[in-house]
């Protein structure tokens, strides 16, 4: 019967038509030539910045649109949770915004998929405006080029509860600075409190291995290497802490948020954080705030860990000159400096850290944290390998947990973690 068949065909076409839009967004636009006229409508995506910095970004966008008439920037701010999933959905669906706030581990897969613009080619002229290390932080092993403008840098201090230190017979003004001092203090704290107060609420992460002096990858950057003697030594010491109750019992399933809460309630004595946390302590835990101690990150290498943020340009943007100009505008020295004055972050532009704002004491805790952090940033290292994906982080956390529970030896656990990470690395 021809009629139902035609109707069936129509239904099938109707069914397939919307699906054809689900592919990978096509390859419209896309050129690394940023020399044309800066014009057109572009989108700019950030994570978790609207709540606190709405007026800063609206002002920034207005300034850019004023400087380049004919441009219009649409700002999209996403929640921090699930940001990578949102990016992957957009990248897969061909709706990745023109300019995107990324970190090096987010930019790596986007660059490998050809979605991040090589700024050595498109914006090489700006390279000298940034700190050398910061510019290099968005390079991806195995690819030539740089895939995002460096934006702000950060390094968190370590907070400690002076009252708990005092109760454990430790000097509240002498916080541990190296891992050996940390382990000794943590064991004493556990012993004196009868296992009720833990010193830390987190298990060691890849950054801890880096700060302990463990080589994370081989020299070629083609395989992981944190299962060496030093890595095993660090994990063995953490196992001793766990057994003694110096690590919170829920450390194996902790998230940064949950360990922050433990610190707030006085269940743990030390926790990493940022200068932003001081306001939180003041508001939500006044008694903790009165006893708050601030010290540098624990490191055995002399180099603290640095977090780097970047701004990448979508290689498929239809408005390359405008997207590159805007990404540069957001990250230029003047705008980074004014952003740094609103929030406890540090500019990645050359010479900015010498500004009196980062060097001159005024007696407040906030300034003390800021100056100490700016000083340590000058030789800080971004320990997280760019290619260390979320799946690899999970594999490491799971193996570390097995070692701490005594289900595997530290050596076996790290061998397994390296094997899993290497396999994921080879699978691309």
């Amino acid at each position: 019967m021809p009629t139902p068949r035609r109707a069936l065909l129509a239904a099938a076409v109707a069914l397939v038509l919307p699906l054809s839009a689900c592919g990978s967004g096509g390859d419209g636009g896309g050129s690394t030539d940023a020399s044309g006229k800066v014009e057109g409508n572009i989108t700019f995506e950030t994570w978790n910045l609207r709540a606190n910095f709405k007026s800063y970004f609206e002002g920034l966008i207005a300034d850019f649109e004023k400087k380049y008439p004919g441009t219009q920037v649409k700002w999209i701010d996403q929640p921090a949770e699930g940001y990578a999933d949102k990016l992957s959905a957009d990248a897969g669906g061909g709706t990745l915004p023109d300019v995107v706030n990324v970190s090096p581990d987010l930019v790596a897969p986007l660059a490998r998929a050809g979605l991040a613009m090589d700024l050595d080619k498109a914006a090489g002229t700006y390279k000298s405006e940034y700190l050398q290390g910061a510019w290099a932080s968005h390079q991806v092993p195995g690819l030539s080029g740089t895939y995002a403008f460096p934006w702000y840098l950060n390094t968190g201090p370590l907070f400690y509860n002076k009252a708990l230190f005092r109760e454990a017979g430790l000097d509240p003004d002498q916080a541990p600075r190296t891992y050996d001092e940390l382990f000794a203090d943590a064991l004493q704290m556990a012993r004196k409190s009868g296992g009720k107060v833990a010193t830390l609420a987190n298990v060691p992460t890849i950054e801890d291995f880096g700060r302990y002096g463990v080589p994370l990858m081989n020299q070629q950057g083609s395989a992981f290497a944190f299962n060496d003697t030093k890595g095993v030594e660090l994990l063995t010491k953490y196992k001793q802490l766990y057994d003694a109750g110096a690590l919170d019992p829920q450390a194996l399933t902790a998230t940064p948020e949950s360990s922050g809460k433990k610190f707030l309630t006085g269940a743990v004595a030390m926790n990493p954080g940022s200068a932003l946390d001081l306001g939180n302590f003041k508001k939500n835990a006044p008694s903790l705030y009165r006893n708050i101690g601030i010290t540098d990150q624990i490191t055995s290498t002399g180099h603290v860990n640095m977090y780097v943020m970047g701004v990448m340009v979508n290689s498929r943007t239809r408005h390359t000159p405008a997207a590159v100009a805007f990404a540069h505008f957001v990250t230029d020295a003047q705008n980074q400096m004014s952003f740094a004055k609103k929030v406890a972050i540090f500019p990645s532009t050359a010479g900015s850290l010498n500004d009196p704002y980062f060097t001159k004491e005024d007696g407040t805790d906030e300034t003390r944290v800021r100056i100490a952090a700016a000083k340590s940033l000058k030789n800080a290292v971004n320990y997280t390998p760019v290619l260390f994906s979320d799946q690899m982080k999970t594999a490491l956390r799971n193996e570390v947990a097995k070692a701490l529970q005594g289900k595997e030896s530290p050596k076996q656990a790290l061998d397994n973690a390296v094997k899993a990470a290497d396999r994921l690395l080879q699978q691309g």
Partner: protein
Amino acid sequence: MAVPLRVTNRPPARIRRQLPHSPWLFAAPGLLVTGAFVLYPFVSTLVNSFTDRRTLLPGRFVGLANFRELLHDDMFWTGLRNSTLYVLGVVPALVVLPLLLALLVQKNIPGITFFRSAFYTPVVASIVVVGLIWVWLLDERGLVNSLLQAIGIGRVGFLSDQWLLLLSAMAVTVWKGLGYYMIIYLAALADVPRELHEAAAVDGAGPLRRFLTVTVPAVRSTMVLVAALSSVAAFKVFSEVYLMAGPDGGPAGEDTTLVMLVQRTGTGLTGRVGYASALSVVVFLVTVALMLLVLRTDRREEP
């Protein structure tokens, strides 16, 4: 002159001409939605399971490699074990407890509406809120542990011990599901003829006897339906365990369920979509097998 009335059940010619199209037009919106959000993802998952596709990189056909890999993946076996344990732990409780609850709230006594609503509240509460409340209750320093400590039992690691964590998550699933299945049972109980109970009572059957010989046989089909629905839901459990055990699935990932593993493996910028699809296909097959098993039990017991 009166026109003779012709009685016919044939529709007028204009409507007749449209008839062949009409069913399709009516079905089109449904077909479209089902096609876009059910069939397409299903077929796409099936196709992806035979490729090494990544989130951002197109895949190559790799045959059964993903399925072979998961046979050697410890995490897959952990997930399968936990999802199966979840079915075994949760389904019997969700078949029996809501029935008992329905019997309790079925009675027309003053204030019973309040209790019916109270038991149904967890069903409508957001799972995230429910998860957070239970995490606070069961935390090392939470309400439950404070009470246990006060009566001298000491702290229990509900959220740090692998097995206690799984049991706690199961308890939350049962707690949240009770009201939902209670409503289904209430509807079934309303259909049980009152005369049967009265006749049994006249014959000297006590409440327990009447429950076993009258109520249970009358609601047996509903029990099978509840078993089928709850076993599929239990095998696909995600939220409760994710919220209570954390994104890694508890200490060393030991509480990971299969759906959590699919989520963890296949999402993010470096997600292994091909491998996660193979895991999803396994979840689908096991779920279908579970349904068939439960429904087959019903048929076998049919008189």
